[in-house]
Each structure stands twice: as C-alpha cells, then as structure tokens.
C-alpha cells in the first residue's frame, strides 16, 4: 500500500470550449470540456485540470458554467487555474464545483494572496503554478510570466520556498524551456524543487515518450501533468499508466469500463 502517483490531463478552456488541437477519433465534439473531462475520467485520469485562458470576465462566467457542468458528471478532483486574483474568485470557483485552484501571476504580483486563500479555505485547495525557465538567477531557474515570454528576475527556488511558507498546498512546476517540445521533462528543475519543498510536486512540460514520465517520477515528482500528448492521442492515459505499472510505480488502475 502506497500513495499512487497521479496522471493529470490539462485542458485549456476559453469561451466554454477546449482550445489547442485535439485529435481523438472517438469523440464527435472534441472541443467540449465536459465531454473531454468525462472521457479522461473514464480512461483513468487521477485528477483533471482546467486552465481558463479567457481574456474577458464575461468568458470567465462561461468557465464557471463549464466547471459546474463538469462537477455534475465527473467525481474526481478538479483543479481550475487562470485569472484568479482574489479570495472571491476562489470562492466562486469552489462553489461552482472546483476542488482546488491554481494561482500564478497574481501571487507573484501580490504574494499575500497565498496566505489569504490558505487562511480562508485551507492550503489543500491551493496549487502554486510556477512557470520557470533556466536563467542566470542564483539557483539557475527563473520565474516567468505570460507563458514564459517575460522574465521576472525572481529566483524560482526562492519563490517556491516563500510560497510554501505562505501556505500553498501543492506545487505545479511548468518548465517553459521544455513546454511543448515533447523532449522530456526538465529533470534538473524537478530535482531542485523537490529538494526544497515538502508539499506534493506536479511536474509539467516536455512529456513525450513513456520513459519521460518515469524519469520525472524518479526525479521526485508526485504527479505528472500533460496536455498535448493526451489531446493529440500520442499516448492514451491508460497506456501511460500501464507502462508505469509494469515498471513498478504505484499506479491507480482504472476500474471503469
């Protein structure tokens, strides 16, 4: 008996639709987030993440509706990130049916937001999303914003330590260098963050081969998030889980038909 590693597909949602190309063959409407969430659940996803990339607040209302409809059908944990700037934003998402929220830019701009959310709802609802790249900061890793396009000069390891002290319950570590390359997770970055954080660590960015998933776990990740390899059908969630199970990792095998 051990805690299973988690496989987490991430869906980018805007205006009530999933964006980024999807390449399923067995879905009539591949852009519907509720339908995709349900499919990933049946394939054995251990959690789901929605990233709201809407530009306007009216679209955010639509996202709340997507969260509501998903939570009606899917009984696994749902994390929602994107555009969260206040305790009230978190409250709305949790009421709609999200179990956790992930925050990024707003916490960089105003770190106290972390403590405000943790005090009100508990650390367990709060995932700190860190978009980091290799750079000449003290640790060699720098926090970026705007999808890795803008540097902040903030050292990524120092930021993780500070955020943990303020009360985040989990770290989502996105490698901006590896993101979208399918050339493997940034193992050095995962190792470095694992060494200094005592909360669960989700690795993201770079998943390509099945071996890549195993390497990230060996580096200390507790959970693995991926988007394009799943959306494009390069790997099905079940393939990844069966591979890792065969390699001896603790996996929750899906019982659903």
């Amino acid at each position, binding site marked *: 008996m051990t805690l299973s590693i988690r496989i987490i597909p991430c869906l980018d949602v805007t205006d009530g639709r999933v964006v980024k190309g999807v390449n399923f063959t067995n879905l009539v409407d591949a852009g519907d987030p509720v339908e995709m969430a349900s499919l990933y659940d049946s394939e054995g996803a251990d959690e789901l993440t929605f990233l709201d990339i809407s530009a306007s607040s009216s679209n955010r209302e639509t996202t709340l509706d997507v969260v509501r409809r998903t939570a009606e059908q899917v009984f*696994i944990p749902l994390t929602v990130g994107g555009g969260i700037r206040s305790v009230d934003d978190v409250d709305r998402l949790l009421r709609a049916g999200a179990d956790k929220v992930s925050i990024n830019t707003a916490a960089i701009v105003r770190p106290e937001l972390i403590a405000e959310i943790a005090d009100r709802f508990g650390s367990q609802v709060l995932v700190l999303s860190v978009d980091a790249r290799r750079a000449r900061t003290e640790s060699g890793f720098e926090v970026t914003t705007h999808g890795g396009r803008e540097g902040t000069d903030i050292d990524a390891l120092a930021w993780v330590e500070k955020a943990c002290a303020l009360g985040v319950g989990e770290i989502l570590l996105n490698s901006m260098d590896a993101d979208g390359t399918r050339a493997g997770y940034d193992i050095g970055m995962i190792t470095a963050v694992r060494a200094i954080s005592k909360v669960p660590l989700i690795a993201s960015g770079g998943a390509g081969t099945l071996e890549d998933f195993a390497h990230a776990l060996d580096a200390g990740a507790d959970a693995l998030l991926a988007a394009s390899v799943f959306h494009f059908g390069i790997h099905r969630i079940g393939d990844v889980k069966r591979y890792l199970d065969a390699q001896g990792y603790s996996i929750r095998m899906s019982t659903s038909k």
Partner: protein
Amino acid sequence: MIAILDYGSGNLRSAQRAFATASDNVILTSDFDEAIEADGLVVPGVGAFAACMKGLEAVKGSEIIRKRKELERPTLGICIGMQILFSEGLEHSESGSHAGVGIWKGQISKVDAPILPHMGWNSVESATHSTLFKGIENESFYFVHSYAAKSSPSSNATWTTYGEKFLSAIEDEYVSATQFHPEKSGRAGLALIKNWVKSL
C-alpha cells in the same frame, strides 16, 4: 431522505451530487430539525479542525450528531467531518488542542510523513466486516489531509499507510466516517456511498 449538513465548510455541491447518484432525495441543510429527522446525515468538511468546529457549533452541529446517535440514526463524517467526531484535535499545535464533538475518545494529530498534505489516491486495509467497503475492498480512494487519527475506538476500523498507519475509515454502529473523500473517489467512491445509503 439524506441530509448534507451545511455549516459553511467545503464544496457541498459535489457531495450533494455524489449522494444523489445513490438516492432520489438529498438535501443540503443547516436546519436543526431537518438534520435530526433525516434517514442519513452526512457531515462533510474541509480546511482546519478549529474552523470546522466553529462552523459546526453555529448550526448546533455537535448536538445534532449526538442526538442522532442516541436516536440510533446513521451519520457519516467525511475528511475533517470525520476528524471533528473525535474528542481532540491537535491541528496547528501552536494554538494548542481543540475540543471535537467527542463521539469517540481520541486525538487527531499530524501524519508523520516527509511530504504533506497526503494528497492523492491510496489503498485501504478494510475492516473484515465492513459495510462501506463491500465489493470495493481493493480499490483506492482520494485523500487530502495532513492530520489523522492513529488509533481506533472501534474494532470495525479501516487503515491506510502514508508514512505511518492511520485510521482511514471507521464504522461504529450508527456513526461511520471516512478520512478520504468518497465524493471525489470516482466509481469506487460512488460505490461506497451506495453501500452506506443502502444500509440506512
């Protein structure tokens, strides 16, 4: 009728939706009489022990739970809703210990593991004569917590190991509880909910 006790803790809607898969009549309530009269009462809970107790007292939750036990009416606690049924919570030890509802004598203390919260799917060593785990003895369930009970006041106890062994479920006559979230544990969780509802 199944009542989910609304005392300002957590995402009650997902609990309501999950229990609605097993019963046609599930309500959210903070009404004293309604909570007493329900065939089954669910006490959910997320966040911190002390904050939960405060919310619970605001709706006379302790009294509801104790009275239901006297009347031999089933109650199910979930996550912090399990922890607060014990007599004492040591959460946030700098502020000392907090009194719980006291259905069971025992302490809730921090899980001894290098990485906390214990977050994700873990298996259970289910009690031999369990009603809740019937047919799903070998499944995993979704946990999110840093504190737990380390000893059981009842022999009908289910255990999980994360760093150390802790009580992941208890079935003590009319009061049952799970440390994990059945409402977030996929099909296995819904099966557990159905088992409980069928037992009412």
